[in-house]
């Protein structure tokens, strides 16, 4: 996208936000009841992705970067992981709107799925710590048991295609489990169970995962 900042300005205006251009592709966005929010606007060309080194470059090249909005949202899992390590938020335009509505400091924004998953995981007595490993993936350190790497999805109807799509997306991750965190998911299709059996990666519902964290997957 050639003028991503202009595109974001227009989209923000449609949502009732005024913004001011700052140097280095930044926008300062006015908010009525919260501090103004500064974002760095990144537009990707066809075939480009926003990767971990782009997170580092954004921070190093643009002082004070706290939120990078990437259009279109081709953000790698490594970039999400690096963003957490560096204490900033990297997201698409939709999540920018959520951050503007919800967060005093938009650099600390996390999406609703991650917020729910983090809340449930960190309140589990067997979880010592969490580290983000992708858009929705975590390394979980457990008391007295080996760490687990999980990929999560909030699909209501989990399908075999969804399993393969997740695994293709997370090629650099070696998950111990796939966890379906949608509380309305009550079971899995025959074909998705068959597919998980073929991959050897267990597929579990979030409630079952939380119940078994202290005893299983040793």
């Amino acid at each position, binding site marked *: 996208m050639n003028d991503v900042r202009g595109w974001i300005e227009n989209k923000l205006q449609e949502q009732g936000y005024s913004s001011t251009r700052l140097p280095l592709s930044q926008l300062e966005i006015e908010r009525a009841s919260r501090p103004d929010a500064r974002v760095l606007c990144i537009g990707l060309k066809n075939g480009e992705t926003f990767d971990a080194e782009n997170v580092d470059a954004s921070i190093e090249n643009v002082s004070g970067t706290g939120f990078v909005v990437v259009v*279109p*949202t081709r953000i790698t899992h490594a970039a999400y992981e690096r963003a957490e390590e560096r204490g900033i938020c990297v997201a698409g335009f939709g999540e920018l709107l959520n951050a503007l509505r919800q967060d005093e400091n938009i650099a600390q924004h996390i999406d609703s799925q991650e917020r729910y998953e983090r809340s449930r995981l960190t309140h589990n007595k067997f979880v010592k710590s969490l580290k983000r490993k992708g858009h929705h993936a975590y390394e979980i350190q457990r008391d007295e048991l080996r760490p687990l790497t999980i990929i999560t999805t909030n699909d209501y*109807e989990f*399908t*075999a*295609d969804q399993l393969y799509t997740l695994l293709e997306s997370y090629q650099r991750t070696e998950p111990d489990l796939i966890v379906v965190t949608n509380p309305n998911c009550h079971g899995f*299709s025959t*074909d998705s169970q068959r597919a998980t059996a073929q991959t050897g990666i267990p597929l579990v519902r979030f409630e079952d995962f939380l119940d078994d964290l202290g005893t299983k997957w040793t």
Partner: protein
Amino acid sequence: MAARSLPSLQVWLFGSAFRSEEPADLDILLVYENRSSVVALRKMQPWEDFCPPCHLIAMTPLEVTEYDFIATTEAVRLL
């Protein structure tokens, strides 16, 4: 249009497209026998970047039956 080149795919529309003149997104169900058709369709366009974005969910015929998906969502077949 892209799905016309993949005749083995069934394409169904469901969700907010039926309830709103300006839906936030378009929910598309793909029913497939061979997953390579789904992979090919996904590669044809950046569906999620459309305005409104297209969310594709792909199911085997057995999954459609087990989840009772078409009846539950009142999906309408496009192709």
